[in-house]
């Protein structure tokens, strides 16, 4: 009898929480879905236009206004995927973005732990100083960066761009990770030390799995800001490590306006981002909810 009541109570709780969720998503009106839908349409239209142009010949783009490609062609994509100048641009971008993401996270993990667990001399000033570097306009730093990395002999290498992007990605990584780490109770650390764990072993075996979604979110943001940045990446490279976005600007000026080709290259710059979003989509929802971000 009492079991039945418990089950019944359980179902009631479950159904109310479903109702509550629904109440929130409906936003008090039946037309609640309209706002996000319109917004997504607004986001997709320019992307559709780019996609549309990428399947047209430059002639068709310039000569007539068509809502979909009449002379459908893969020639633009074919050119990009077979011409080393183009596809090397992609490989370069992916190379320095990956290096940067790894460096940022590896360096930021212990620092974020220190900020979340300890007080030390000048900690608050240091934290704010780190954030200020997220605020430094890249336009300010372009020329000095060029001189610095040239002097070191790192000009036109992947590692140069990866290191330069640390300027804004490390502060961001520390900031986000610190939020996640502060959400983990300190008792967990203490219990582990009592159980005889050394700090590195505790950190890798116990602590990192606990903040896995935080690391996922951080990786997403590091990837994103490194992938989209162009000013520094362009300043620090010439041939060997030139990012795809810079290849696009050069081609635009060199061969007149090859609009179809540019559009196809643009579409292809969206692809890696889309793949990354697809893989971290659950982390974003769950990860954001867990941390203080």
């Amino acid at each position, binding site marked *: 009898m009492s079991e039945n009541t418990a089950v019944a109570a359980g179902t009631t709780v479950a159904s109310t929480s479903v109702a509550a*969720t629904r109440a929130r998503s409906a*936003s008090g009106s039946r037309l609640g*879905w309209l706002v996000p839908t319109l917004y997504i349409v607004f986001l997709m239209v320019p992307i559709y236009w780019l996609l549309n142009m990428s399947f047209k010949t430059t002639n068709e783009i310039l000569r007539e206004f068509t809502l979909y490609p009449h002379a459908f062609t893969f020639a633009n994509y074919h050119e990009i995927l077979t011409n080393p100048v183009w596809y090397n641009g992609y490989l370069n971008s992916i190379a320095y973005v990956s290096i940067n993401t790894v460096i940022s996270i590896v360096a*930021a993990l212990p620092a974020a732990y220190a900020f979340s667990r300890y007080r030390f001399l000048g900690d608050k000033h240091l934290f704010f100083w780190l954030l200020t*570097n997220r605020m430094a306009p890249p336009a300010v730093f372009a020329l000095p960066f060029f*001189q610095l990395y040239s002097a070191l002999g790192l000009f036109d290498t992947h590692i140069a761009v990866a290191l330069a992007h640390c300027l804004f990605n490390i502060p961001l990584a520390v900031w986000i990770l610190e939020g996640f780490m502060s959400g983990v109770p300190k008792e967990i650390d203490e219990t582990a030390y009592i159980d005889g764990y050394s700090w590195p072993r505790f950190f890798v075996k116990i602590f990192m799995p606990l903040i896995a979604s935080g690391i996922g979110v951080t990786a997403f943001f590091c990837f994103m800001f490194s992938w989209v940045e162009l*000013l520094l990446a362009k300043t620090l490279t010439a041939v060997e490590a030139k990012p795809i976005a810079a290849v696009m600007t050069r081609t635009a000026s060199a061969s007149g306006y090859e609009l179809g080709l540019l559009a196809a290259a643009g579409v292809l710059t*969206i692809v890696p981002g889309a793949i990354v979003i697809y893989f971290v989509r659950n982390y974003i929802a769950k990860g954001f909810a867990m941390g203080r971000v």
Partner: protein
Amino acid sequence: MDKTWNNRAWFMVLPVLVLVAFNAIIPLMTVVNYSVQETFGDNVFFFHGVGWFQDVLQSDRFHAALMRSLSFTAIILAIEVPLGVAIALTMPGKGFWASVCLVLMALPLLIPWNVVGAIWNIFALPDIGLLGRLLNGMGFEYNYTRQPGDAWFTLILMDVWHWTSLVVLLAYAGLSSIPDAYYQAARIDGASRWAVFRFIQLPKMKRVLTIAVLLRFMDSFMIYTEPSVLTGGGPGNATTVLSIDLVKVALGQFDLGPAAAMSIIYFLIILLLSWIFYTLMMRNEEQ
């Protein structure tokens, strides 16, 4: 959380410190160095004191660019933050459709900035762009390469398109952290939709919204690539925001002294405003 005092924590911060300092302090010193020197070419420099700073601070050109940057940032924040919150409130809370929304909305965030500029550059063209065609077809005389008003409209629309999703993602994260029990309690109390927003959702979103405002403030104030591809600062100087002006001075005219002085003033403005935001945020958190 009460933290223990431990100065050895500095060793954990050291790698970050070295990497960031290498990238921040050396270039910053180069800029400072240029800002106090004058040159007549041939790499011969001599000390110029604070002359460049006085010149920059008194120049109408700098004031105009600063006003453009501040107006741009103010408009962007006024549109994107409320819009982002509204979208986060109305989008599905969880499940399949929430994932679909998140994936689609995050897409513009991951497009390289010059590609964003290029997309809008073409999308808004009056002859071959969809937006330009549409607006002209509706009877507006729209041409963003000629009319300053249209250029601003396009620039703002582009930024809303590009960045509102960041506010949505952050606000959504704040909303997801609210336990269902809160909503149940509100229902039992018979709270109105507005009361739920004002007393449950808004306070819970406070921290993420501060981060959103801070990030949007910094990025919109520093914006360079997108407007430089979209309008190149034109027509005339209509959309020449601070960063575009700075690059014009530094790389276009190669006036390193004034450019460096401008950089430092620019950086200090961002620093000051961000410090105010940051202090307010920390004070809120301690309460």
